[in-house]
């Protein structure tokens, strides 16, 4: 099994919009969903459809994985990359990437995105967060007032 796995040279990922990405096996290691798919196959080349991930997002994820899988990059360089990576994302991109990360089951990228999203809602009002996450409140106004009162200090 191990020998077969290592014989795979290139993995082709096909995004929801049909765009195709060719990546090395070590890049997809982080994507557990893809990795388990590969593990089940007995082929030299594989092509994997990812119907829940859009091309733009997949491109970004692959870029992230490449940077972090690289052994030549220093820790500082990776941190610098992370910083820039978050900086050029729009708010909506972050949510989409989180969703993609969830689908691909990428633990460290998930945490990374969760942090980025947390930064997005930091020091924001409940209304802002609701709007950002598109959450519809299922509280009555009384219930909500009660909850706010319970932790008054946090809403000051």
């Amino acid at each position: 099994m191990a020998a077969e796995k290592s014989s795979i040279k290139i993995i082709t990922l096909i995004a929801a919009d049909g765009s195709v990405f060719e990546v090395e096996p070590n890049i997809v290691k982080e994507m557990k969903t893809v990795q388990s798919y590969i593990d089940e196959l007995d082929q030299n080349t594989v092509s994997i459809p990812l119907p829940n991930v859009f091309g733009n997002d997949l491109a970004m994820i692959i870029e992230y994985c490449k940077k972090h899988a690289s052994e030549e990059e220093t820790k500082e360089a990776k941190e610098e990359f992370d910083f820039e990576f978050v900086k050029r994302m729009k708010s909506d991109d972050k949510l989409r990437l989180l969703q993609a990360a969830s689908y691909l089951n990428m633990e460290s990228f998930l945490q990374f995105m969760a942090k980025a999203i947390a930064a997005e809602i930091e020091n924001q009002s409940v209304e802002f967060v609701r709007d950002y996450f598109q959450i519809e409140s299922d509280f009555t106004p009384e219930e909500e007032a009660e909850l706010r009162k319970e932790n008054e200090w946090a809403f000051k």
Partner: protein
Amino acid sequence: MSIPSSKKEVNEKRRVDFISQLPDDILFFIISSLSIDDAVKTSVLSKRWIYLRNNVSHFDFDWTHMLKPVPNIYNRISYNKFLKSLATEENARKYSEIVNGILHQHIGDYLINSVLPAFESCEKLKILKLEKMSMVDSIINGILENCFGLEKFCLIESDGFDSLKIENKNLKYLELLLLDVEEIDVNVEELHVLVIDSLRCPPKGLRIYSQNLWNFSYTCNSDPQDILQTREVFENCSNLLVEESSVFTVTFDNCALPFPNSMFWENREVPDFVCMKLKFVTVKRFTGKALEISFLKHLITRAYMMKKLQVEESSVFTVTFDNCALPFPNSMFWENREVPDFVCMKLKFVTVKRFTGKALEISFLKHLITRAYMMKKLQRPVVYFVGC
């Protein structure tokens, strides 16, 4: 493996209510990454988020997000001032109240058998006060273990646990009030202040190893007989007052007389509880009972470095000379001490009973008179006063 309905996504920029489709684990990641105030605020988003907040494994109890500085002077300088002022009791109290509140909401009915999820990673938590909490052993000890950065810990009127293990390296201040336990292990080298009040615990169950204790205060303010008494604490915690302690407070209390056995101190050949470097001793509610005197005598004779013995809350200091419990069996005691400056400066009334004129009694009175500058009245029913 089907492509999700693209129509919706095109219209709504691909994020319609998607967050509620995400599994809890991922939302936990988000909450965990938030500061404590923002994390608490998420519970107002929707009912699901209450559940999420109550089950998240990680809270950063960072006080800068819990006690907000006075608004409109939020500049760098006043912020630093605020940092300093956190040390004040007021803020510490507020902080604990908030932590208390969050925990209360977090653990709900307390029916959890493992470490409170909120404390799985709390290295930032420095001050923690748990009051009227019900926690099983594994929870309270898990909390202590996980909050290894704690500097101040107060455990008050809480139950549900039998043993406490406190080994937090950074702990400086420890307060244990109104507890009922089987055993307590305090093993904190750097602990400076230890306050124990009304502790119900078998004498042998209390083990304290804190070599750098500055201030130890033990009080029994409640009635029940099984409250651990001061005498028992000393009897069993031979390491309690070791080398570096310099302040020591004893509270004599009628309801829980610390020395029921007047022979107690005399019977001990090596009363190893005494701190050789003890410098300041405060005695409260001293009533002049023989065994209290015997205890003081013990203190005085062993604490060679003592500079000041302060008698508080008792402006009347009664010394009873009695054959059965003569306070100074060794007549050389006072003479041998070069600076026996044990007298409380505020001492105003001294009553001497059953004075017999023995040399050492005189020596003791002489000492009292010369040191107690504030003394207004010295009462002495028996008239044999041999000049000194």
